[in-house]
């Protein structure tokens, strides 16, 4: 069966998702939610639930492009019988599991392109971290800022310089292709299609 696919994605990877569709590597409909919803988990979960409810009963399949971003993400997957990318977060989606683990071993703090634009607002306004506290906390737990450059926007060097000064961590750029992300998306789509296929059979039998 050829299913129409809805990709319900965090806006943090909007550029990457749109690029994959532009290249014809994924097809279907792209829906994005504001990445800032991560700062308000109940709203994130409520919004995801609302969108999933809207799509219930629609023909085709749906893939959640979210990591373990809500405490009940897997419950949503099971409740609405949708696919989900098998990653713990968006950095792992871009890097793949092995490289992500290597960087975590290096105590890297990974910065995504979309997030880089918002670093100041998130760290200062959302988390309320003064420079001194941020310096301490980041220094205790992380060794380096790693900007994940997917090649779709210019590297925001000024932001990275400022974030580096604020956090006290050195920074570097790691180039990432979209290959790992694509493979993960397609794996999730297979699962989503299987769910949708079962649903279709049930509907047909009725």
């Amino acid at each position: 069966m050829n299913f129409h696919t809805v990709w319900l994605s965090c806006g943090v990877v909007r550029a990457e998702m749109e690029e994959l569709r532009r290249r014809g590597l994924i097809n279907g409909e792209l829906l994005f939610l504001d990445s800032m919803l991560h700062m308000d988990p109940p709203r994130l979960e409520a919004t995801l639930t609302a969108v999933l409810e809207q799509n219930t009963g629609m023909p085709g399949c749906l893939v959640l492009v979210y990591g373990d971003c809500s405490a009940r993400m897997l419950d949503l997957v099971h409740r609405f019988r949708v696919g989900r990318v098998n990653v713990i977060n968006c950095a792992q989606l871009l890097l793949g599991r092995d490289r992500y683990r290597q960087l975590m071993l290096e105590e890297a703090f990974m910065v995504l392109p979309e997030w880089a634009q918002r670093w100041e607002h998130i760290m200062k306004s959302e988390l309320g971290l003064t420079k001194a506290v941020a310096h301490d906390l980041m220094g205790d737990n992380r060794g380096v800022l790693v900007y994940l450059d997917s090649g779709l926007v210019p590297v925001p060097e000024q932001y990275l310089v400022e974030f580096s000064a604020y956090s006290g961590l050195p920074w570097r750029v790691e180039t990432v292709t979209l290959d790992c992300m694509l493979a993960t998306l397609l794996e999730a789509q297979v699962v989503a299609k299987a769910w949708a296929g079962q649903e279709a059979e049930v509907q047909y039998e009725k």
Partner: protein
Amino acid sequence: MIPQIWSEKLLATMINADRNGAAELIDQALAEGVEPWQVIADILDPAIVQLGCLWEEETMSLAQSFVASKIAEDALLRCIPEKSDTAHTKGAVVIGNIEDDFHSLGRKTVGLFLSAAGWDVYDLGNDVPAEELLEKALEVNASVIGASAMMQTTALNIRKLRQLIDDRGLTGRIKLAVGGAVFNWRPDLVAEVGGDGTVRNAVGADELFMHLQTEAQREATP
């Protein structure tokens, strides 16, 4: 000041990412004669439990929770008692965050509490494959492995450790303690991943590990 007030003030500093304020508060309590164990049990522990509840209720984001948790860890380190009698230990235990899990606070806190309670703690850190946890337990003759996971997806990786323990015929000899925020709001997950027990927070870890070690020793006795 009564412990509840101290605790509420500490929680506020944690939520507001006020690391210095939290440190000052703990120092003040200690300076006013509150015993370190009482700071942990009556001030810090309720704040940590409340922090966990806020996470479970999802009124804190992952990022905020992370920052608050780091402050809790600071506070714990300020008042954890020095291990006094190294010659007399309760035994060896192995702990670690299971493969793919990088949320270290709960594990570190449990390690500190266990160490202070007289255990020889082998903390293998974050993202530890099941094989490594088991091999270390066999190497140091530990009766209990503590596997930690914060999220739903990573908690399921503990099933592999359960499988390994069973496949090696060690089911009774090595007990599996599991912990992390996800087990608090989803207790059924303990059985699903094959855990032999859990506790809601680090304060109860010593009792749980003692209980599991006793069970393991009893089952190992012919």
